[in-house]
């Protein structure tokens, strides 16, 4: 089995929309409660379990955790926070999604809407209420990391008129080694906008 080298991708902080998202692994925690996000737009990542295709389970490699966090933070910046501010289509998605996933979201539709926040220009600051990702790793019979699932739970609040809009996303993402990094290969995400009066 060919496992691409696991390289941590240093995704550029912020996207073209100037969202200010940053990459990094500063919010990684092991088990228990998620650590608070170190930066305004970053996931608090916990490593929940390793599921081995062999009798014994290896530990969750820190470089895999960091690479997965980099991709998730890149998604958050490029696909959610940036477009929330600009209303414009996201850029830089090829650094975050695998080719099959990019194909899936290339045309407008429910799948694209689930993972891309676009066409809804909202002014004002984007406040991250919380963004949690709980990771489970699948390892091959030889112990190589082959697949990570991320259980996503996040809310971002944006000021809109006299109130706020809570941009809520929850569900699961699957990341796989791809082109020297870990990228989002599939997802089952539900997105909604909840309006609340100030």
């Amino acid at each position, binding site marked *: 089995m060919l496992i691409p080298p696991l390289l941590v991708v240093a995704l550029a902080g912020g996207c073209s929309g100037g969202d200010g998202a940053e990459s990094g692994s500063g919010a990684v925690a092991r088990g228990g409660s998620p650590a608070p996000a170190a930066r305004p737009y970053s996931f608090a990542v916990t490593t929940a379990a390793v599921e081995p*295709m062999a009798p014994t389970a290896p530990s969750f490699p820190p470089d895999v955790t960091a690479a997965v966090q980099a991709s998730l933070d890149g998604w958050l910046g490029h696909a959610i926070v940036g477009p929330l501010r600009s209303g414009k289509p996201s850029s830089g998605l090829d650094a975050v999604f695998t080719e*099959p996933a990019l194909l*899936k979201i290339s045309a407008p539709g429910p799948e694209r809407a689930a993972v891309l926040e676009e066409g809804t220009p909202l002014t004002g600051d984007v406040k991250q209420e919380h963004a949690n990702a709980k990771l489970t790793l699948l390892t*091959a019979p030889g112990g190589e990391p*082959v*697949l990570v699932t991320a*259980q996503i739970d996040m809310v971002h609040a944006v000021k809109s008129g006299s109130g706020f809009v809570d941009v809520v996303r929850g569900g*699961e993402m*699957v990341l796989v080694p791809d082109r020297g990094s870990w990228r989002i290969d*599939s997802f089952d995400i539900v997105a909604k906008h909840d309006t609340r009066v100030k």
Partner: protein
Amino acid sequence: MTRVVAVAVAVLAVLSVTAAVRGGPAGSSQTALEIHKVDTGAFSPRPGQPVFMLALGLDGGRPGIDGDRSDAIHLIGINPATGEGTMINFPRDTYVAIPGHGRAKLNDAYALGGPGLAANTIEQLTGIDVSFVLATRFAPFVDMVNSAGGVDVDVPIAMNDSFSGANFPQGRVHMGGNEALAFSRNRHITGGDFTRSEHQGLLILSALTKLRAENPGATGAARYLAVLGRYVGITGVTPVELYRLSRLAVTIDPAKVRSVVMPGGIGTAGAQSIVTVGGGAAGLFADMRDDAVLQSH
């Protein structure tokens, strides 16, 4: 194994349930389920690219005499874009050309050359490229279906067959492993081998319905794949491909899968009773080939 794992194993096993047991149960040392990748290139479901797999039920062979024959043979096509699919059920006695071995019954292909030759034989017959071969044997099948909590099957006609042990009223029946095996083995019914093949297809769709109802999500799928990896023989399939395959199966609505039996007739070849490929078969294969969906059948 957890229940969801058992369901996953069972659905894959039911995808290739053994219909007739010629040599008695397989030895307990045999792998419960084998998953073989028989084409090249990485597998990734793409919207415009149908996926085809061959599901086989092996009879365990006659120890010391010959190898496994595939007595349940199903070609399954899935269209990832539409969530539709087609399953062509082949009577085991279908008389075909087996590459490198002349003409013989379709169920001999696996015994003569394993999953690769079984896939090549189907590809030559249908013109459809097979990516995966799933194969299971009789012995572990009963236990696996039981571990999964059984399966609900809408029995199309009442059965009372002492040979297979199939005794069912018409209508929905909750079947354990023994009942599911008996249902799939019974050919003492109108239509004989053709109807039996159709019933095997029905059992596969019933298992798919169960898997869909117990959709474990991405994290649950990773968990059961880890267990599958410890219990299932996997050849040429990466864990990621296996994951994609399992998730693809969950996206398919069984109501959108057409199950059809290959058109054919009854004949003889020497002293053998055989099934001949019918005149409508070529059109059926061509219809399935482009997008795994039947438009004209």
